[in-house]
C-alpha cells in the first residue's frame, strides 16, 4: 500500500514539475516596468475570421485587474484606423516607438492567435485555443514578456454506453458544430480563460502592476533568472 501512495505522489509531483518547466526570465521586465499597456488588434494565424474580435474582448479585465493602466480598446482601434492602420498585420509591424509617440503608452501588447480549432477526437469535440502574448517596451523596443498560452476544452462528454451511445454522441457532436451560436457560446468562455491564465499564472504571466496591492511583492512568483 505505501508503495502505491508513493507512486501516486511521484506522479503528482511529476505533473507539477512539467507544469512549471517553462520559466520566463523577468529581468527585462523589471528593467523597464510598464505602468500603461496598449492592447492593439489581434493578429490571426488561423482561418477563423471571428477569432481576433472575440479574443480581444477578453483581455482588458484580467490586464486591468492585474494593476496596469489599459488603454480603451475601441478608442485605440479607431485611432489606429485614423492613422491609416486598419489591420493587425500592419499594426504589429509598426516600430514600438510609434505607440509611445501617438498614445503615450509604456508598453504595447501584441497578441497572435496560433490555433483556434475544434477537433473531433474519438467521441468528443475538443476545442483548442492557443495564442502568443508579446509585450514590448515602447521606448527601447525590449521584449518584456513573451508567453504562449493554450487552453482546451472537451464538449459533449457524458455517459451513454454501448454502440448506440457512441452513435448518439457522434450525432450530437456533429449537430454541435452546425449550430451557429455554438461558436460563440463555446469559444467565448474558453477565450476568457485563455487570457486570464496567460496574464495571471505564476512564473509565466505578468507580475502585479502599479495599481495592484501586491505590486513589487511577487518577485519570487515571477523570478528574474539572474
Amino acid at each position, binding site marked *: 500500500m505505501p508503495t502505491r501512495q508513493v507512486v501516486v505522489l511521484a506522479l503528482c509531483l511529476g505533473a507539477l514539475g512539467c507544469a512549471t518547466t517553462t520559466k520566463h526570465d523577468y529581468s527585462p521586465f523589471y528593467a523597464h516596468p510598464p505602468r500603461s499597456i496598449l492592447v492593439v488588434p489581434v493578429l490571426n494565424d488561423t482561418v477563423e475570421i471571428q477569432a481576433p474580435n472575440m479574443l480581444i474582448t477578453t483581455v482588458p479585465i484580467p490586464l*486591468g485587474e492585474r494593476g496596469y493602466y489599459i488603454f480603451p480598446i475601441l478608442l485605440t482601434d479607431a485611432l489606429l484606423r485614423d492613422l491609416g492602420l486598419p489591420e493587425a498585420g500592419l499594426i504589429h509591424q509598426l516600430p514600438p516607438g510609434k505607440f509611445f509617440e501617438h498614445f503615450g503608452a509604456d508598453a504595447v501588447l501584441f497578441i497572435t492567435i496560433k490555433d483556434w480549432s475544434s477537433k473531433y477526437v474519438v467521441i468528443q469535440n475538443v476545442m483548442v485555443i492557443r495564442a502568443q502574448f508579446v509585450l514590448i517596451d515602447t521606448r527601447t523596443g525590449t521584449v518584456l514578456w513573451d508567453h504562449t498560452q493554450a487552453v482546451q476544452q472537451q464538449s459533449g462528454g457524458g455517459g451513454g454506453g454501448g454502440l448506440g451511445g457512441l452513435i448518439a454522441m457522434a450525432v450530437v457532436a456533429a449537430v454541435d458544430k452546425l449550430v451557429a451560436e455554438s461558436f460563440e457560446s463555446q469559444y467565448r468562455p474558453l477565450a476568457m480563460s485563455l487570457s486570464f491564465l496567460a496574464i495571471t499564472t505564476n512564473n509565466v504571466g505578468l507580475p502585479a502592476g502599479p495599481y495592484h496591492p501586491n505590486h513589487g511583492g511577487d518577485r519570487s512568483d515571477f523570478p528574474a533568472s539572474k
Partner: protein
Amino acid sequence: MEIFVGSIRLSRIGWCPLWIVALSVGLLFFLQACAPKPLYNWGGYNECVYAYCYKNDPEKAYALLSETVTNAEKNNLRLAPGLCAEYGYLLYQRGEIGLAAQYFQKEAIAFPESAVLMNKLIGRLKQGESKETASQPESVPAPVTGPSGGAE
C-alpha cells in the same frame, strides 16, 4: 444485505477517492483565498466591447457603457481604466462633443497614464469646435500628430 455490501464497497474504495476529494476541496479553498476582490468597477464594459467588436452593435455598446458610467457615478464606484475614455469616444461618435471632452478629462485625472493621449484628444475637439466646419468627418478626433508621425 445489499446495503451492507454497498457500504463495504464504499468503504473499501472510499479511501482512494478521498485523496481526490480532499485535494479538490483544498484546491477550491485555495483558489477562493487567492481570488482577490476586484480593483475596479467594470460594470458592463466586457459586454460593451463584445457588442461593439464582435456583434457589431454600437447602439447596445453605448447603452451598456452609459449605464455602467452612470451607475458608477451615482454609487461612487471606482471605474476601471479606459472606461471614461471609451465612453467619451462613444459620446463623440454621437456628436456630443462637449460631454466627450468632459469624459476624456475625467480619464486623464483618474489615470495620469492616459493624460498625454486625453489632452491631445481634448485639444483636437476644441480645435474642431472653433473651426465649426464639419468638412472632415473623422471617426475620432485624431491625435495632433498626423499619420506621417511627425515628432511633436
